[in-house]
């Protein structure tokens, strides 16, 4: 046999790939959201597809450009697009336009118990349950991200210069306070126990605030922008992309200040582009720039298994169904793997 250096070696497929379904759609996957045991996926051509029991839905022609953001409200999908539309889509594919901002993009969407939020430019539009007209929360600069806390009483809005923290009192009035840190803040999340707020920045670093005393600090050392980060189920760790390892910061006790993160290395030494916590475990799925995906236990990284081998396209979405039975992986090249997490006999 003669080696051909121009060809990629034929890698054996993983057992997850062998028992799952692969879809080569050729359209960039921009985001995904779990709704029960279904996963809704947004694409770079404005379409949404729903994956359920290994089956792919009819194409839902939601937006004319890119699905920029995705979230859920109960059983419904929420999407924001670069066609300026904010949509609510049922799992049956029925589209309901909530707002249309024309040539202004809808950058971020989220919801809590029927309260719907989208952002366009520097304004948060907030629809309280069953209200037709939104409340407008204006900010000094374009909004980088938006997140409700676990009780829906606080809404964090990241922007240039810090985070505006909106708080709802018992008469449903919203008032704001500011968490200040120089620079441009992008995505924002609360820890699952609501004790911390974390933002990613334009610089290759994250910033966090401990909310009880508003102390803050940063997490740096990344080789790239941190685009994907999330807390594991009990907030013991914040898992982050942006390096050639998955960087897991300890957030138990008083948080990560003065402590070292756990760094999980992967074969190939590629950039980690997406992280998704495994529900109810100190474990994460890690997606890399070459399309490969691994599952690791954070404190026992020896227990790392490969879920998907490489596709040459960076991983842009990972979603696990609510019953933890299945996982969906999507990448910028439009390759999707939908597979069961457990062997039949492991169940």
């Amino acid at each position, binding site marked *: 046999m003669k080696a051909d250096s121009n060809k990629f070696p034929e890698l054996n497929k993983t057992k997850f790939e062998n028992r799952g379904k692969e879809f080569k759609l050729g359209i960039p996957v921009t985001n995904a959201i779990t709704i029960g045991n279904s996963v809704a996926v947004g694409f770079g051509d404005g379409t949404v597809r729903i994956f359920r029991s290994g089956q792919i839905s009819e194409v839902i022609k939601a937006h004319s450009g890119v699905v920029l953001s995705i979230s859920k409200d109960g059983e419904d999908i929420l999407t924001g697009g670069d066609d300026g539309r904010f949509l609510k889509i049922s799992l049956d594919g029925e589209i309901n336009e909530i707002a249309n901002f024309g040539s202004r993009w809808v950058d971020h969407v989220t919801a809590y118990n029927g309260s719907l939020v989208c952002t366009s430019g520097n304004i948060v539009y907030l629809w309280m349950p069953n209200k037709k007209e939104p409340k407008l929360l204006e900010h000094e600069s374009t909004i980088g991200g938006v997140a409700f806390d676990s009780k829906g009483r606080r809404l964090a809005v990241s922007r240039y210069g810090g985070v505006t923290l909106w708080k709802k009192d018992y008469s449903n009035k919203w008032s704001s306070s500011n968490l200040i840190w120089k*620079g441009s803040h992008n995505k924002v999340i609360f820890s699952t126990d609501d004790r911390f707020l974390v933002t990613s920045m334009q610089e290759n670093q994250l910033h966090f605030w401990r909310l009880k005393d508003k102390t803050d600090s940063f997490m740096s050392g990344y080789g790239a922008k941190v685009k994907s980060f999330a807390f594991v189920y009990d907030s013991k760790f914040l898992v982050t992309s942006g390096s050639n390892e998955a960087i897991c910061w300890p957030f138990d006790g008083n948080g990560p200040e003065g402590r070292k993160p756990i760094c999980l290395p992967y074969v190939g030494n590629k950039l980690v582009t997406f992280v998704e916590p495994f529900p109810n475990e100190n474990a994460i799925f890690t997606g890399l720039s070459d399309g490969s995906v691994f599952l690791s236990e954070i404190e026992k990284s020896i227990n790392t298994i490969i879920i998907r081998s490489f596709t040459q396209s960076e991983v842009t979405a990972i979603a696990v169904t609510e019953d933890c039975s299945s996982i969906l992986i999507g990448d910028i090249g439009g390759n999707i793997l939908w597979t069961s997490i457990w062997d039949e006999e492991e169940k």
Partner: protein
Amino acid sequence: MGETNKQVPVTVLTGFLGAGKTTLLNRILTEQHGKKYAVIVNEFGEQGIDNDLVVDADEEVFEMNNGCICCTVRGDLIRILSGLMKRADKLDAIIVETTGLADPAPVAQTFFVDQDVADRTKLDAIVTVADAVHLSTQLSDHHEAEEQVAFADVVLLNKIDLVDESRLDAVKDRIKKINPFAKIIHTTKCGVSLSEILNLDAFNLKRILDTEPDFLTSDHDHEHDDDVTSLSFVSDTPLDMEKFQDWFSKLLQTKGQDILRTKGILDFKGENDRYVFQGVHMLMDASPMGKWPEGKERNSRLVFIGRNLESMNLKEGFENCKSA
């Protein structure tokens, strides 16, 4: 990542209100059949733009937290360019129209500083549309007009039918004094061949060698201190690399706010390669660009465009870099 890695060229259109930016933009869009363009406009646009893909921008200028005092970027551009790169249909080019009063530096710096933007797009050229009738007054009255000329790779001198020859010459001299390496194109109603303003690859170091900008040493009259002017230097004696790096990095660190643009081709003692660089304020792109061509004289040429250049002892600093 294969084809997703192809960099989409971005052309920046600057110019004062009324100079003819939107006329030029509509000309580009109607003449380029079969090409897919995204146009990023500001909210103060003069008239309608006829394109499928028009994005409203807010011209938000952000300071970077990277210790570089004059390093500002356009936050809205980072967001919009990243969003456009997620599209399923690939764009042939992106055109960014700035407001009349915008400083082009943050736009240019965005392409140096943001890794995602640099990976997926490239700054093709800065095209400044100038009104032949009003440019002289605008240059005297507004810093921004000077900056737009200083940063330009191409100056489209528009409405030349409305001025006589002597006035046209005076305006051209004024432009040359500010920016000796901008190409000046005369137009009425922005009538220009699109090949002269699109796909120029003006920020590619190779292009600096190809275009051989006007590096003639300029003796220059004393201007008002805050006028934008240019100074250039030529040396037939090879330079000492260590001395040059030391001088030049200190110069940019301390005077980077006043130095708008720099370009140079350098001959270092003991090195076989030509070194080419270009900079925007403190940010610099530099690289060896292959051997000196046979039969061509080796020398070092350097151009500065900026304010208060007289106070920086540039000539003395450059002379001190010559190898012994």
